[in-house]
Structures are given as C-alpha cells and as structure tokens.
C-alpha cells in the first residue's frame, strides 16, 4: 500500500471507529471495546508498515487541497518523531483499551466511552502527523474537545464536570493562543506548511515577531502540558475514569505540548527567550510538581503531580536548546509514557479492587495482590529513576545536560541543583506511594475485599513494566534505533553523538543520581509520618488551583463582564435613542467640520410674509405638541394635526398638489387611529407631578440641547442644499418621457405607477404587512385592567339614562348621533364618488390609487363612527384581507403581464382608445396597477381601523359576559 494511503487510514480509522461506536447501543461493551482495540492495534500496525520509510530518514506524506487560497492543505507528514509518537499513542492506546474493557463497570454506557477514546486517539495522531501548522491546530483543539468529553464521562459527578470544564477552558485557551502563534509563524515564513516552516529557522528566530510568536506558541504548549503556571487543571482531570488518566497523562494529551516544542525545536530553540521561558516554566513545574506530589493522599493525585513534574523535566531539557538536551527530552517522553501509563493502570486496579485510592486508607496491599504490587513497584522505581530502569537512563542524560553550560544566566547556574532537588523529591513520592500502598500491615477496612484483578486488566501493566525493564537494561538495542530515527528527524544534521547505556562510568551525573536517590530516601524516612498525616503541602496548603481558577473565571467572565455590559450598554430605550440621535448628529457634522463648510448667506429674498406666518403657526403647533404630549394627549394630537395641516399647505404652496392631498388624507386617518388607541392608555393628570430631581432636570436639559442641536443641524443641511443649484439629475428624463412614454401628465403619478412602480409595490406591501401585524396583535389584545371598563363618560350617560324613567337605556348616545349620523351616512356614496374621481384622474392630475384608497377607508370609518361597529357590520361585508390579497396579486399580474411580451417585469403599456360618442379614453396598464394599489390600501387601512375599533366591542362583550355570570 502506498504510504499516503497508510497515513490517511491511520487518521481516518479512529474517527470512523468513533462514529461507529457512538451509535452502538449502551450495553454493547464487547463490540465497542473490540472495535476500539482493533482500531488501535490496526493503527499501530499501520505505523509499523511505515517504518521502512522513516527508517530511511524520509517522511511519509499525503496532501489534499483544502483551502488552497489560504495555504491550508490537509497534508499529513510522518517523520521519525511523528512515527515514534504514533507508536506510543497507538500502542499504549491499545493497552488502555484492553484495560478499560475490564475496568469499566457493566452499567457504564461504554460505547460512548470508546467513541470519545477513539476520537481522542485520532486527534492525537493528527497532531503528530499534521503536515500543516493550521491542521495541527485543528487536531490540537480536537484533543481538547475529546479530552473534555473523556474527563467529563461521569458527568453526573460534580468533580468530573468541573475538571472537564477546567481542562477544556485552559487547554482551549492555550489552543487559541497557539493558533495566533501559528498564524504569526505563517506570516513570517509565508506558509503554514511544516516542511517550509522547519526550513525557515533563521528567518523565524530573526524576525521582529519572533517573541510574540514564541510566547503564543508556548501558551499553547504549556497549557497542554500542564506547565507552571497552567498546571492546575491536570490534578482535577483525575476525575476521569482511570483508563482515561492512564492514556491522557502518559502518552498523549500532555505529551502534545512537549511534542510540539520538540517539533518546533529546530526553528525556535536556541534563543535567550526560548531558554528563559522554557527553563523557568520547566524548572518550577519540575520541582513544584514533585513537591506537591509528596503531599497527595490520592493515589492518582500523586501520579498527576508527578506528571507535571516529569513534563517540567522534559521542558527543562528542551529549554537548553542543545541537541543532547533534545535527545534526552525525546527519550524521557517515551520513558515517562511507559511507566506513567502502567502506574495509572495499577492505581486503577487498586481503586477497582479496594474501592478507594486514599493512601491513608490503603496499606499492605502486597499481600492481596502480589503481582500487581510487583509491577507497580517496578514502575515506581522507574519513575524515581532507579538504575536498570528506563527512567534512570533518561534522568542521567538530564543530569549530564544540566551541568553543561548553555547560557550565561542564573537559570543555567542553578539548573544542576534544581535537577537534583527535583529528582530527590521524585524518589520521596515514589517511595511514599509504594510504602503506603503495598507495604505495612494489611488494612482491614477496605470497602471491598481486594484480590488480583482479571488477567487482561493486569496484562497491559505487565507489558509496559516489561518495556521499562528492557529499555532500562538494554536501551541501545531496544529503543536505540527508533529513538535515533526520531532524533534525526528533529535535529537532522545537528544530531549529536550520544550513547544509550546504563553504565558510563563514575560521572558527575551518576554522583548526582546517587545524591538524589539517597537524598530522596532520607527525606522519606524523615518525613514519612508527617506526609501521611499532612493536611496539605506546606506553604501551598491554602492555594487551591481550582478555586483560584474558578474565582478568576467568575470575576472575569461573570462579574466583570456584567459590569462591563451594564456600563457599556443599556436595556432602556431612552439612552438608546439618545445615542442614535447623537450618532447621527456627529455623523452628519463631522464631514462638515472636517472639510470646512459655509452655507449660503441667509437670505430673506422671495420670502412671502404669509408663508412665514404660516410656518410661525406650524412651528408653534409643533413646539406646543412637544410640550403638551405628556399630560394633554388630545391637545397634542390636535397640535400635531395643526402642524400637519401647515405641512400640507406648504406642499400646495410649493407645487406639490399630490403630496398635499395624500398627506391630508393620511393625517385624517392617522388622527382617527390614534384616537381609537387613546382609549386604552392610562389616565394621566398634570396634578400628579412626577418628582423633579436635579438629575432629572439635568437629563431634560441634555435632551433639550440635543433636540435643538439636531433641529439646527437639519435646518443647516436643508438650507445648504436648497440654496444650491440643482444638480443635473434624473428628473428631466421623467418630465420628458412622462407623457410620451408613460402616457400620463401627472409626472409624480407616472413615477409612482410606472417609472418607479417597483417602489410603490414595496410600499404597498409594507402597508399590507403592517395591517396584518396590527390585526394579529389586536386579536390577542389584552387591555390593562384599569381600561377594561367603559369610559367614564359612557358610565355617566348610562347612569343618567337609567335613572330617568322617560329615557331608554342608551338614549343619550342615540340622541347625540341622531342628526349627525344621517348626514354621515348620506356622505358615504359621495365619498365613494370622490374616491373614484381621485383614482381615475390620478394619471393625469393629482390623485391616484393611494389617495383614493385612503379616502375610501375614511368613508368606511365615518360609517363606523356614525353608527357603531355592530350596525355597520350587519350591513356591510368588509373583507379587508381579501382586498389586500387581491390588490397585491392584481398589481403583480399587471406587472408580470409584460413577460408575455418578453419585456421586463412592470413594463407598462398605454394607448388612447377611441370609443364612439365617448371620445378618446386613455388606457394605461399603470392604471390597472394603481387599481391594485387602491385595493390594497383600502383593505389595509380598513383592516387596521376595524381591528382597533373591534376592541371596544370585544371588551363590551366581555363586560356583558361578566355581568351575566
């Protein structure tokens, strides 16, 4: 099989398996486990198939275009380092699957577990084989997501939820930082392709943006690898099922961080910044992790902090920037994966068998489970760096590098001491683990009677421990060649000479090892008892990483955010409008200030005194309306009408008869509408003055100032434009073509029904929509309690009628409307004729479908006012919705008829028809269109008016119903 296909399968298989297992029923443990195991094994095998390629020093590749324009390819690239990691990931993955099959309880919905597991494995494999940095980030975040799901697998536990959330938040945050870092690298290199990036070390290190890129990338790796100060999430991730911990915290998740650092080692390492950042984080993590591990009472807690510590060690090694350091780092990655995985599994066995992981409750387990005990002891020894085990060899290399001089810096000077101290502490916690769990008197108080676990649960531990041993004894033969492939792929020509052996003679590192081992042992002797009963690590007892994280998160993401939202935003309407008006004002005047602007000098030329006086009246009405709208609603409405009237007169004055007529009609109908609504508004009396505080006065002052500014602004703009020469625009075309090509003399109307009929189309649709909305709203209208009852006047009049025997109930209103209603009714046909008149002459003179429609609606409303809703509806069947629908469709059909002649929509046609005796009659499709407008306007306006009017009837009915009950 070609290498590309192998590589692809390696990535595709786990995800496909994940999809498959998630769909299995909750109880199919074997199928799910089998699938997962088979896939892990298959991938492992695939990796081995690729061995010839990487052993050659080449890398296996495949690439598919994804977003070529952005330099993003789905490219996979397996070199030695990736290959080594792939082996680890799949190999340990397989062992964990076997282990988990027996670890998970029968009731656990295991398919979901294995699904997440496989997804995680796929993502992890993706990280190591990604050939494009962006693709790497993709897989990177995928591991965060999958680990979130895995850690939160037992999600009904608070600790699992919290642990999962914290892990996700921290690592995703790091992932986002890494993303930006990678973008910067891409910017520097000009490509996201890993090969090109790896070939551009000098360019990257010399670039201005090297430091930001480095910091961002390290944010990603440190969070992932739980390096100080981002280490706190890892212990809480222990809430996950133990197989998850065994996998995530040995070979995978946390290794992703150090893997990436090793990956970018050739291009980013070797600078003081790299040295300082990695060195600091690594050292602190190394020592702190080990120190904190000593004090843990939870078995998995020890392992978790130990993981932090060991990753700190690896980071320290990488920080040095020396080729040998890199070799040691890679080697320790492998070693740590083996012994840590086996230890986690052992811890799981203990937990599984005894029902507890608390060191204080565990004791003398060796008697119950000697095999597991032995395995765990060997693994712990590897962790402590005992000779003949793999951990020892890499630690020796670490010591050797620590004493070398790399940089002239304090960090470099203290490195050997730190190394010894950390290692000694590692010895201490390893001893504590073994001693406390397996040695001593067998405890009686286990929740369950412990015994050896099933064979297949032990087998993975056994295999891993075996590996520790073999590698520890004969490293050169076993791991040597494979490690070399990895090292070569990272360091290339810079690969140093190194030898993997147990014995190098009595060297400084050996002495350091001895000091560390004996020191650790001594420390344990001294402190064992205290550790067993400690309430927490000295100095760090009260520092709870989770708590701090939660507090910080709450402060930042909740308290601060709420403050900011409240401070930067509002949910009240008035400030929003204030901002809107201010924004418009600023927007309009910034350009004017910017470019300097002088409006034409004020001129009273051709100012007609009557016109000025007219606007004095109109202006007063407007200002008074503004002043009175709060307490005197009816007055404000009347004043509004006054302004409107003046506006209409202005239109007449300034050659816009169409506007005048339409505005008048609209104003009349609007006034009726608002009056219909007034009945449902609360009574407001000037007597109840609201409290005027200085603050409210200030607010009013501000509003007034803004209003005046805005008004002034509009004046200036209007004056500036009106006093300028009119541009040579599109108007002349309309005037010239209106009659000859539009068939109408009223240019405004021809524009509306022909030139720009599409606007009219939209406009009547708006009216129709609004009418529907009004109707829908009013159908569910629920009046406020205080306005349900009849108005005060009606109550008084009814009471009067009822109190007088010569009055029939309702006589007052009947008398009131008796004569007026006669006139109003007889005006109905007159209004119809007026509407017909307005409609028919619209094309040649002021008028048109809209004006006619509103006039017609006014006629309807007049009837409602004259005789009441019930009376009218007994006699007239008004189907406003049908009018609206038909109107729209008619207009549409008229427009679409043009298609029959292969002309664009709304193309008009007109001709003068010569009818005998009658004469020439103009016929234009525009008029038909206008008929649609008319129909819709009548329907829409009437619908709104009627819907509002019906509310009174409804509440009347409701009141009657109440009376009857």
């Amino acid at each position, binding site marked *: 099989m070609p290498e590309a296909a192998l590589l692809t399968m390696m990535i595709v298989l786990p995800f496909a398996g994940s999809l498959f297992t998630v769909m299995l029923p909750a109880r199919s443990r074997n199928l799910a486990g089998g699938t997962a195991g088979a896939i892990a094994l298959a991938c492992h095998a695939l990796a081995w198939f690729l061995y010839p390629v990487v052993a050659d020093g080449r890398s296996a590749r495949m690439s598919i275009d994804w977003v070529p324009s952005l330099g993003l390819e789905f490219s996979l690239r397996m070199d030695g380092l990736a290959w080594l990691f792939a082996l680890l990931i799949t190999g340990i993955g397989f062992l964990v699957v076997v282990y988990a099959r027996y670890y998970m309880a029968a009731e656990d919905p295991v398919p979901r577990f294995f699904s997440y597991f496989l997804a995680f494995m796929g993502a992890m494999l993706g990280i190591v084989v990604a050939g494009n940095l962006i693709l790497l980030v993709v897989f990177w975040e995928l591991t965060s997501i999958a680990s979130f799901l895995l850690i939160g697998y037992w999600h009904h536990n608070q600790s699992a939820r919290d642990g999962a959330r914290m892990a996700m938040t921290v690592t995703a945050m790091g992932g986002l930082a890494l993303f930006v870092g990678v973008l910067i690298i891409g910017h520097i290199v000009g490509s996201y392709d890993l090969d090109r990036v790896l070939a551009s070390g000098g360019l990257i290190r010399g670039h201005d943006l090297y430091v930001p890129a480095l910091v961002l990338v390290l944010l990603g790796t440190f969070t992932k690898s739980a390096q100080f100060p981002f280490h706190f999430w890892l212990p809480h991730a222990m809430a996950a099922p133990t197989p998850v911990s065994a996998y995530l915290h040995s070979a995978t998740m946390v290794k992703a961080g150090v893997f990436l650092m090793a990956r970018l080692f050739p291009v980013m390492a070797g600078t003081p910044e790299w040295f300082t950042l990695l060195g600091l984080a690594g050292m602190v993590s190394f020592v702190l992790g080990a120190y904190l591990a000593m004090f843990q009472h939870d078995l998995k807690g020890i392992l978790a902090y130990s993981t932090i510590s060991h990753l700190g060690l690896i980071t320290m090694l990488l920080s040095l920037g020396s080729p040998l350091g890199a070799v040691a780092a890679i080697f320790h990655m492998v070693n740590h994966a083996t012994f840590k995985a086996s230890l986690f599994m052992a811890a799981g066995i203990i937990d599984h068998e005894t029902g507890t992981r608390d060191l204080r409750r565990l004791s003398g387990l060796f008697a119950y489970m000697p095999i597991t005990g032995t395995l765990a002891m060997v693994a712990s020894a590897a962790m402590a760096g005992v000779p003949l085990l793999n951990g020892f060899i890499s630690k020796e290399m670490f010591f050797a590098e620590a004493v070398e001089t790399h940089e002239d810096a304090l960090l470099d000077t203290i490195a050997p001491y730190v190394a010894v101290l950390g290692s000694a502490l590692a010895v201490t916690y390893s001893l504590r683990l073994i001693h406390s769990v397996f040695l001593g008197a067998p405890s009686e108080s286990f929740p369950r009677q412990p015994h050896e676990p099933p064979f297949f649960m032990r087998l993975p531990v056994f295999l891993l421990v075996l590996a520790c041993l073999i590698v520890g004894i004969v490293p050169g033969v076993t791991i040597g060649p494979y490690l070399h492939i990895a090292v070569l792929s990272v360091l290339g020509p810079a690969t140093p000479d190194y030898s993997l052996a147990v014995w190098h003679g009595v060297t400084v590192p050996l002495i350091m090892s001895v000091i560390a081992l004996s020191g650790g042992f001594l420390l344990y002797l001294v402190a064992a008892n205290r550790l067993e009963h400690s309430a927490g690590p000295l100095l760090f007892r009260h520092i709870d990483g989770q708590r701090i994280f939660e507090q910080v998160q709450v402060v930042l993401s909740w308290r601060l955010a709420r403050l900011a939202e409240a401070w930067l935003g509002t949910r009240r309407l008035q400030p929003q409008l204030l901002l809107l008006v201010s924004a418009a004002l600023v927007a309009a005047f910034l350009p004017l200030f910017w470019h300097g602007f002088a409006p034409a000098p004020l001129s009273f030329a051709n100012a007609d005194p009557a016109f000025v006086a007219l606007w004095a009246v109109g202006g007063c009405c407007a200002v008074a309306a503004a002043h009175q709208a709060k307490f005197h609603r009816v007055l404000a409405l009347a004043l509004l009408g006054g302004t409107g009237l003046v506006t209409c007169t202005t239109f007449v004055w300034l050659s816009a008869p169409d506007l005048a007529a339409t505005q008048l009609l609209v104003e009349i109908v609007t006034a009726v509408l608002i009056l219909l609504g007034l009945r449902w508004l609360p009574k407001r009396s000037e007597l109840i003055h609201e409290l005027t505080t200085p603050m409210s006065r200030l607010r009013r002052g501000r509003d007034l100032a803004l209003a005046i500014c805005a008004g002034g602004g509009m004046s200036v703009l209007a004056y500036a434009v009106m006093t300028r020469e009119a541009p040579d625009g599109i108007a002349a075309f309309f005037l010239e073509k209106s009659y000859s090509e539009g068939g109408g003399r009223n240019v405004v109307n021809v524009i509306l029904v022909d030139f720009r009929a599409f606007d009219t189309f939209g406009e009547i649709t708006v009216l129709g929509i609004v009418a529907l909305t009004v109707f829908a709203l009013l159908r569910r209208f629920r009046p406020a309690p205080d306005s349900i009852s009849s108005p005060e006047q009606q109550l008084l009049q009814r009471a009067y009628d009822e109190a007088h025997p010569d009055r029939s109930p309702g006589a007052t209103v009947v008398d009131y409307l008796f004569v007026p209603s006669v006139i109003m009714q007889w005006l*109905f046909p007159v209004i119809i004729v007026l509407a017909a008149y307005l409609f028919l002459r619209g094309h040649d003179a002021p008028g048109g479908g809209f004006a006619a429609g509103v006039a017609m609606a006014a006629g309807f409303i007049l009837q409602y006012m004259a005789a009441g809703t019930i009376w009218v509806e007994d006699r007239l069947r008004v189907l406003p919705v049908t009018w609206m629908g038909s109107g729209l469709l008619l207009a549409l059909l008229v427009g679409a008829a043009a298609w029959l002649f292969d002309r664009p929509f709304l193309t008009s046609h007109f001709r003068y028809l010569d009818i005998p005796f009658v004469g020439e009659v103009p016929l234009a499709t525009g008029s038909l269109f206008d008929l649609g407008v008319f129909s819709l306007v009548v329907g829409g306006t009437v619908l709104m008016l009627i819907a509002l009017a019906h509310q009174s009837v409804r509440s009347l009915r409701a009141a009657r119903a109440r009376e009857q009950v």
Partner: protein
Amino acid sequence: MSRVLPYPLLTASLLLMWLLLNGFSPGHVVLGLAVAVFASRVMVALHPGKPRLRRWQLIPRLFLLVVADVVKSNVAVTSIILQGKRRQWTAGFVAIPLKLRDEIGLAVLACIITSTPGTAWIDYDQASGVLLIHVLDLADEEEWRELIRTRYEALLREIFE
C-alpha cells in the same frame, strides 16, 4: 327601477357631482353614471330611511330664505366681533319643541341653523322632540322660538312630511 336605481335623486346628484368635477363630456356622462349607480347601490346596504320629498318646489324658497338670513347674521356677528367690548350682548340657550320628525328634514334644519352665524344647534331630544340651540345675541327667547318654528320648521315639514 327601484332595484336598479334605489335612490334616483342621490344618483342624479352624484352624477352631477361627477360632471362638476370632471367637466361635461359624453364619456364622463357614461362614466359618471356608472360610478353614481354603483355608489347608490352601496348605499342600499346601509338601509337608510328613504327620503320622501313631498313638495320639492318649496326648496328654492327655503334656499332664498336661508341665504337672506345668513347674510344678515353674518353682518350681525361680524359687527359683534369687531365692535368688541363696546357692544354688549347676551348669549343664551333656547329650547324649542319641534314637531318635525323626519330625519332628513332635521338634518337640513341642522345645516341651516349651523350655517347661520349666531345660532348653533346644541342638542335634540328625540323622545320629546325638543331642540336646544344656542344664540349669540339673545334678546328675546320667544322670538327665536317663533323664528325657527315658523320660518324653517313649517317649511321643512311641508317639504318632507
């Protein structure tokens, strides 16, 4: 006939209105007739009482009477307004019992009283037929009652009842 043209007078008036608006032409006569007939037929739906014109030949007399009165009262009221404080006047209400019951007749009376400056129709009590008007320059209540009843009511009753 009454089904096609339920209100012939109305139809005729509407046609007249149409022709006044559009000018006289054969086309507009046809069109106006169509519109007028349509509008009249809509009117049927509202079922108003059908007006009966008994003696329409009296209408011109009524018209002239009204014009004369309106001219007089225009002058009177204008003088009241323009003389301001120099002239004293007493305004007041006058209740007038009416025999006229025809709603069209009453509507016409309302138009007349309202169009005449100095008098205003305030209230009409259907049960008792009492009309309340307001008079700007009220010298003698009885005189006004007589005026309304003899000058207008009688004539209107002749025309409509």
